[in-house]
């Protein structure tokens, strides 16, 4: 089978399939298991300076076409996350991406500085979580200047550790936003976070089902939106792209590669196809690469733009 190993910001992921942030990313043991199930790298659940409790249940809500979630960024804080990184290193040699968020530009810098000490392979900057408006104001990810400032602050704090900025569709132009990140020093783009938010109501009680009222949309429903986002990011920048959004098959992963992704993130696919989705997508992706004249993922990356 084709060699799928892929280098992003100097970090080798084999296969180029990454566990997306917020999925099974709270403990070292669970991330190590995801690696045993075929992931080439894992992303931790986003962490903040201090621990956060998150929202009450229901906070995850499957529906016919995907999933709504409003977990509320529950996390053990950067200190707890750093311990998890250290523990993960004892269990697995796969690359680990730490994900961070914060309520201000300065705080992003502080969290980055702290997490950098734990030496993750990449720091992913979550400027785009749709579930924490009230506490942190509108998501930074919709604002070019705020995103630029956060990117610079995190880069300053991260030292040699590469920084990926995770973008949202809830912005005027995701392509231009990616360019802003590139110009501000980002080393990679992750696209996309959940879409919306959305809502589902229960007819009997007439209430939103999610305890938070609304939640971010993920899964199959958003695949075409994520694909087009990746296509746009590639048109606007030369940065490597971690493509995330609705991917659960090799066909979808391949579309992302053609659109410009270097590696592919899987979140909700762990639900729709089970945790061995990584093994399965790797096999399907490999078969596809083998069926092309190029027989090389790198040569296929962005080929839809050719």
């Amino acid at each position, binding site marked *: 089978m084709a060699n799928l190993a892929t280098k992003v910001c100097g970090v080798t992921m084999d296969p180029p399939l990454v566990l997306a942030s*917020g*999925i*099974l*990313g*709270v*403990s070292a*043991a*669970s*991330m*190590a*298991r*995801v690696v*045993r*199930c075929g992931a080439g790298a894992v992303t931790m*659940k986003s962490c903040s300076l201090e621990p956060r409790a998150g929202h*009450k*249940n*229901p*906070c*995850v*809500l*499957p*529906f*016919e076409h995907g*999933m709504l*979630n409003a*977990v509320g960024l529950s996390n053990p804080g950067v200190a707890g996350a750093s311990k998890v990184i250290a523990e993960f290193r004892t269990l697995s040699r796969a690359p680990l991406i730490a994900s961070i968020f914060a309520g201000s530009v300065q705080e992003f810098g502080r969290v980055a500085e702290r997490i950098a000490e734990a030496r993750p392979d990449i720091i992913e900057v979550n400027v785009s979580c749709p579930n924490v408006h009230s506490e942190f104001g509108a998501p930074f990810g919709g604002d070019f200047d705020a995103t630029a400032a956060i990117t610079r602050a995190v880069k300053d704090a991260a030292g040699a550790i590469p920084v990926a900025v995770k973008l949202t569709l809830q912005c005027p132009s995701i392509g231009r936003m990616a360019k802003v990140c590139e110009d501000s020093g980002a080393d990679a783009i992750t696209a996309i976070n959940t879409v919306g938010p959305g809502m*589902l109501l*229960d*007819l*009997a*009680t007439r*209430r939103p*089902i999610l*305890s938070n009222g609304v939640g971010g949309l993920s899964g199959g429903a958003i695949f075409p939106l994520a694909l087009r986002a990746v296509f746009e990011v590639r048109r606007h920048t030369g940065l490597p792209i971690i493509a995330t959004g609705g991917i659960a098959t090799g066909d979808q992963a391949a579309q992302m590669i053609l659109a410009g992704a270097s590696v592919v993130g899987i*979140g*909700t696919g*762990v*639900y729709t196809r*089970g*945790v061995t989705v990584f093994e399965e997508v790797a096999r399907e992706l490999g078969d596809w690469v083998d069926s092309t004249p190029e027989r090389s993922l790198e040569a296929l990356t962005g080929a839809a733009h050719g």
Partner: protein
Amino acid sequence: MDDRMRTWPLLEVVEHNPGLKSFYFETDSEVQPGQFIMLWLPGVDEKPFSVSDVDDGRLEVTVKAVGPFTRKLMECRPGERLGLRGPFGRPFAPAEGPPPLLVGGGCGVAPLRFLHRHLERRGLSSTFLVGVRTAADLMFREEYAGGLAMVVTDDGSLGERRLLPDKVGELLANQTYGTLCAAGPEVVLSTLKKLAESRGIPSELSYERHMKCAVGLCGECCLEDNGLRLCVEGPVLRHPLPR
């Protein structure tokens, strides 16, 4: 009932003891003993509960009031609509061959009772042992006082005065069982696991951990040692463990 949330009218509530009730809902689903559902009290919270029986299109859960959620639940009256999603998780799968030994401790009686009835309805025999601190903690006391199950209590208020693991040790020493199926506090489970190991029989143990998504995404229920998700690979784990 499926993975998606839907509200169902509460058909009936039966009080076993103060703070210990069974709740009945209409159901259209196949549920296996050992599986659990997520129960939503709109405006309050959503928590996991083992199914304690499915009979004649009615799903039963049996709950002990231990905190804010379960106390609120005790106030629910027939006709109210509560949310259900599920069933989730890996059920009990006792090996073929000699009958299994079923052991329920505390609230762990609920899934074992379902398994016991389930086997009975299929004409399969099993030995059923339940253990609680004191008589008032026993779910389905009416049933078990009649001899359907062996009962042990820590304080002797019902059945034999005996600690659950001791009794299990005795049973295992005197008879050959195919599988040890059990649910209860984790300390009890780890003792039972060792007992089964020492007898060379597999054990199927149901673990109760806090759950959030119940669909294998959030990571809340993962075991520290191997990362298994109790909402998907569990709550019933077979020992030795899978990957």
